[in-house]
């Protein structure tokens, strides 16, 4: 009897969703869906994103999404990155004063079987390689800094589960180092955002914040290619720094989440008894 209830619930869900989808597709909600062709705004981005002749609007990158994210609407992405940074800072502030691994357990080793460990050693390297490829080719192929960083963060997570947290801390992936890497990434992003201004100031002219390619009123910009290979000005630097910032940020969250509950409670009790 109980099984039937779920079958009826799932069937009614599927049927109602299908009916709604059909009603939307044939214009039952009062308007017809747009045609599947390329629309005007998308067409404008697709033709200007890599066009050396249209110097005023081009981002000199064949990847429209990365160009929009870090050039056309770069300031929005900067604030998205700041929101993520503040979230990490908040979690660090919550866990302040708590040692991730107590001194007496520094040399403790555990984890899964040698077979799993060997496979993980190989796959962790492959994950990092794929992540670096996604981030560094972000201005040429689909992907970018956030995508690459999120992929890279899976590797320390895997090591944490398979080799235990003690191995991670012993091999040098500590909270302080990850925070330093994350801050370095953010400083790099800010520096890249002002790079055109800095170049312009050194040449005695003016440029915009978040400027990538030269504009008509601000003639300086970052080089679109270095030694014959396309780097799309600021895009490759933004992707590189965002990669480090996101990968280190996620790793900090996992390091903090892996602290055993009794250590956190002990530390909290210690703080309470001091007052």
């Amino acid at each position: 009897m109980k099984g039937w209830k779920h079958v009826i619930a799932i069937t009614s869900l599927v049927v109602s969703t299908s009916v709604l989808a059909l009603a939307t597709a044939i214009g039952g909600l009062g308007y017809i869906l747009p045609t599947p062709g390329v629309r005007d705004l998308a067409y404008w981005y697709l033709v200007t994103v890599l066009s050396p002749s249209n110097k005023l609007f081009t981002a000199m990158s064949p990847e429209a999404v990365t160009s929009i994210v870090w050039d056309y609407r770069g300031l929005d992405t900067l604030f998205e990155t700041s929101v993520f940074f503040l979230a990490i800072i908040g979690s660090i502030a919550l866990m302040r004063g708590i040692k991730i691994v107590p001194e007496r357990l520094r040399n403790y080793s555990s984890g899964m079987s040698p077979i799993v460990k060997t496979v993980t050693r190989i796959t962790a390297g492959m994950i990092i390689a794929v992540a670096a490829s996604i981030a560094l080719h972000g201005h040429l192929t689909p992907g970018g800094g956030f995508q690459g960083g999120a992929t890279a963060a899976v590797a320390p997570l895997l090591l944490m589960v398979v080799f235990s947290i003690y191995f991670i801390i012993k091999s040098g992936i500590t909270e302080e180092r990850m925070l330093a890497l994350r801050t370095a990434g953010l400083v790099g992003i800010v520096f890249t955002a002002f790079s055109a201004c800095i170049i312009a100031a050194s040449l005695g002219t003016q440029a915009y914040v978040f400027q990538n390619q030269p504009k008509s009123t601000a003639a300086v910009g970052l080089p679109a290619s270095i030694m014959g290979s396309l780097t799309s000005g600021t895009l490759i630097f933004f992707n590189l720094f965002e990669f480090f910032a996101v990968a280190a940020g996620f790793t900090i969250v996992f390091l903090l989440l892996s602290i055993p509950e009794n250590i956190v409670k002990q530390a909290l009790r210690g703080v309470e008894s001091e007052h």
Partner: protein
Amino acid sequence: MLSMETLTYGILALLGVISLLGTYLAIIEKDLVKAVIFSALQSTAYAFIFYILMAPDIVLVYVPVAVGLYPAIVLFLIKKTGRLDGDEP
């Protein structure tokens, strides 16, 4: 004969139904670890949907976040609280 367009929409509809099933099972499941796995099933279906809708950038961020990092964070939280829904930690 099935045209390529009909086939694409058919696969999209099938993936949508799989994601709906995954969501339903994740909600009614009392064992939270199994619920996370059903949620990951829903995310996998969504990743394929994004790929068919020609959004490879979204796929590349969705796969590590929704199939790797998000279930891992939720599993960490389940380990710290209780495995069964409604249990006292």
